[in-house]
């Protein structure tokens, strides 16, 4: 399952931060998921839970921040929210747009000590 590999990548980052910062216990992991990242939030939560079972990270909560897709039109300069993945400027209809938000897939924070 694709999100399982993503969950494992999150876990790898968390484990490397635990080592680097000499942390003892993690209770939560904050992850930012953009609408265009190709990752489904529910599948990621499920995969994270499955992958941390019976590991030192078991019980750590995955807190997801979901970011909608936003873009800026290069023709008229106006920003807009990308609805239903239609990448056409909502003001002038141009297809020459630049994505400004939505491709994020980041480990944002850890809660622990």
């Amino acid at each position, binding site marked *: 399952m694709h999100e399982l590999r993503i969950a494992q*990548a999150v876990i790898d980052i968390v484990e490397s*931060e635990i080592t680097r910062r000499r942390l003892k216990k993690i209770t939560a992991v904050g992850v930012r998921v953009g609408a265009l990242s190709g990752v489904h939030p529910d599948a990621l939560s499920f995969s994270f839970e499955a992958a941390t079972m019976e590991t030192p990270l078991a019980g750590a909560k995955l807190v997801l921040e979901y970011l909608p897709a936003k873009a800026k039109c290069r023709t008229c300069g106006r920003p807009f929210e990308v609805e239903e993945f239609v990448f056409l400027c909502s003001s002038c209809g141009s297809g020459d747009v630049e994505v400004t938000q939505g491709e994020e897939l980041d480990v944002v*924070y850890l809660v622990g000590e």
Partner: protein
Amino acid sequence: MNNRIAIEKKVLSANDRLAAAIRAKLEEQRILSLNLVSSPGSGKTSLLERTLGALNSTLRIAVIAGDVQTENDANRLVKAGGRLVRPIVTGGACHLDAAMVTRALDQLDFGHIDLLFIENVGNLVCPSSYDLGEDMKVALISTTEGDDKPLKYPAMFRRSSVLVINKTDLVGLSDFDVPRARDNALTINGKLRIFEISCRSGDGLQAWYEWLIEQAAIKKGRPS
């Protein structure tokens, strides 16, 4: 006491780092690299067979062919004349990643390649998240699929530079409408360069070959 510790690290940073290393290595030799993506059965391997047959004496072409199981695609490409073909068997992963491509590239001599194709696993979802160090993604759809394909898999078509519509010889045998497919694709990505081809009949392939030759020359820094 429970502290909130800021991390701000990209989840795919490991893959991105490897992809950046691949990109740098290909840049050094000015090798044009194309990541071929599509649903299973759209015609990636057929397109590569045709391309090898037509351009093998014009361009030095290498192919990395990925699949979940078997080396069937890689074997077809060797039969079609591919001299630099390396298979990747993922054994379960639904996409290629930069680590797999790095290992395959380690088996190739970079000094003798003009054009590298990476034939990804047939999947329009997962491969869009994994940078392989390529110059461009080339997405394929075929006329036996729905013409709303680009709308259903926007992330992939958004991240592609080229769309190849294959199996034009079968237009009329399904409800696939080519102008509608083009419109749908351009709604998702207004910058897509679109080719309409048939690997079976050969229609439209000349424009594809000419584009490849032109792009490879641009990459090498030579006037085309």
